[in-house]
């Protein structure tokens, strides 16, 4: 563990696919198997379990919390549930019928907290909002031209443009304009398009590999996305794309903007990675929470003998078995970083103004970690 780690909570013995903090950071919600667990944060202590939301009957894939503290979960059982916090600390569930025939994969509240979007494997994004007259959450579909599973969603701060990325290799921006809820003033001077009818495709960018996460930088009118090929890209309204590759090469699953010129990504390498925008565009800048003694960056050891380099690459499993054979036990490998398995999701934790100073992460190892950037 390095000094960039502020807190490290081992909350489960199973993967945490998604996590979310409330606005004041006093409540933490995580997904675990078919449940969503709600924790109360204790200063300098382990989070305290306060509620277990267990109405789903298949794996819960994502959780998000609105500005009002409402929790929304979506699951492979093809439904979403909105959980209204009650004064006695319990949550009142409301089922939202998404009308999809495959798993729901991701969910995001719009900044206003009055509607949310759910991505699914049915090549559909469902935009859901509450209808007073019927006392019912309505779901409207965006279908075309999505060709495959939607992996990730991000709302622009204006609450209308919705970016998504998926396994068809496209990043797309749609309009999620809901009549009666949104007004045209919200997008009056948007550089992305002139008209925003519901479901309209505003832009699309082809990358080719699976898109694992998209994130708006609304103040700059830019969109960042990360892919399974370990690349980080940023696009702007003129369709210019800046791309940077992560030198270690492992897939990136999540991205968070730190400020206008820096973004943190996380993925299969188990520790966050910082990308920075300089004079020559975006570039890999540094690893966060990775001990220096661990595997050397590949490019740094160019001059060494080939065999030396080979020793650090791909041999660890072989070495493990050799040790087991010769010594009868596995030599304890130095733990390189706090997460012991892939990072699934990053989120801003705290910051001042436009600058994020702390980020939170959850991973397949059942941990939630808070990093200093």
């Amino acid at each position: 563990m390095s000094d960039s780690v502020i807190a490290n909570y081992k909350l489960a013995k199973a993967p945490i696919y998604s996590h979310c903090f409330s606005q004041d950071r006093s409540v933490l919600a995580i997904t675990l198997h078919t449940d969503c667990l709600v924790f109360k944060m204790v200063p300098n202590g382990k989070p305290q379990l306060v509620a277990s939301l267990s109405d789903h009957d298949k794996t819960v894939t994502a959780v998000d919390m609105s500005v009002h503290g409402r929790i929304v979960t979506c699951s492979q059982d093809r439904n979403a549930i909105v959980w209204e916090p009650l004064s006695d600390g319990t949550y009142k569930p409301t089922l939202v019928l998404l009308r999809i025939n495959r798993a729901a994969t991701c969910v995001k509240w719009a900044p206003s907290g009055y509607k949310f979007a759910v991505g699914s494997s049915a090549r559909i994004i469902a935009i859901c909002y509450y209808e007073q007259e019927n006392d019912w959450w309505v779901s409207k579909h965006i279908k075309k031209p999505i060709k495959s599973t939607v992996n990730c969603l991000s709302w622009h701060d204006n609450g209308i443009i919705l970016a998504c990325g998926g396994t068809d290799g496209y990043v797309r921006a749609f309009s999620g304009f809901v009549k009666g809820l949104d007004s045209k003033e919200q997008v009056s001077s948007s550089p992305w398009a002139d008209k925003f009818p519901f479901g309209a495709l505003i832009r699309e960018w082809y990358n080719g590999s699976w898109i694992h996460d998209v994130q708006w930088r609304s103040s700059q009118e830019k969109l960042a996305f990360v892919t399974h090929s370990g690349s980080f890209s940023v696009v702007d309204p003129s369709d210019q794309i800046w791309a940077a590759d992560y030198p270690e090469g492992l897939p990136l699953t999540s991205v968070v903007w730190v400020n206008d010129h820096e973004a943190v990504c996380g993925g299969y390498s188990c520790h966050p990675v910082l990308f920075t925008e300089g004079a020559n565009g975006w570039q890999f800048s540094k690893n966060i929470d990775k001990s220096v003694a661990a595997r050397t960056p590949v490019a740094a050891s160019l001059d060494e003998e080939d065999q030396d380099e080979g020793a650090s690459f791909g041999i660890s499993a072989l070495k493990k078995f050799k040790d087991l054979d010769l010594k009868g036990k596995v030599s304890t490998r130095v733990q390189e970083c706090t997460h012991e398995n892939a990072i699934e999701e990053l989120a801003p934790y705290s910051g001042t103004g436009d600058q994020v100073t702390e980020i939170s992460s959850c991973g397949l190892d059942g941990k939630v970690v808070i990093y200093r950037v």
Partner: protein
Amino acid sequence: MEDWRRIDIDAFDPDSGRLTKEDLKPPYPVAVGQAEIDSKISQLRSAATSGDFSTALTLVTSDPPYSADQAIKERYFAAVLSVLTQVRQAEISTLVKQLSSSQTDVLIKYLYKGMSCPEGQKQGGTLLSWFEKVTQHLGVAPVVRYLSDRNTV
């Protein structure tokens, strides 16, 4: 319902549309034609005969015929394979280190393609030593990019 994951749900909803191979093909502006490839192949051959493998490898790894049809790709690949197998073992490492990251990505595609077809498998040892040098130089990054790239050679 134990095996619910195996239910063909598309059969219940014909309108939902299945994902086809065409759907996932990258959008190419123009297709590479026969004549273009023939000239590339002759360039490759002449570079290889004169022993200038550095030039040959640069040719191979820049601007591969992603948009060409399968027959043209096969013809081109045969030429590429002959270049790769003519290089002496000792030179491979030096040549690999001269390549840029995007060129290495293309090289890896040809290596995998070689290992997947009978002509290449006859030269398996050579291809594996190329592969070894690439991964020693750049780690797993080119392999991960190969796995997630839909442009095929």
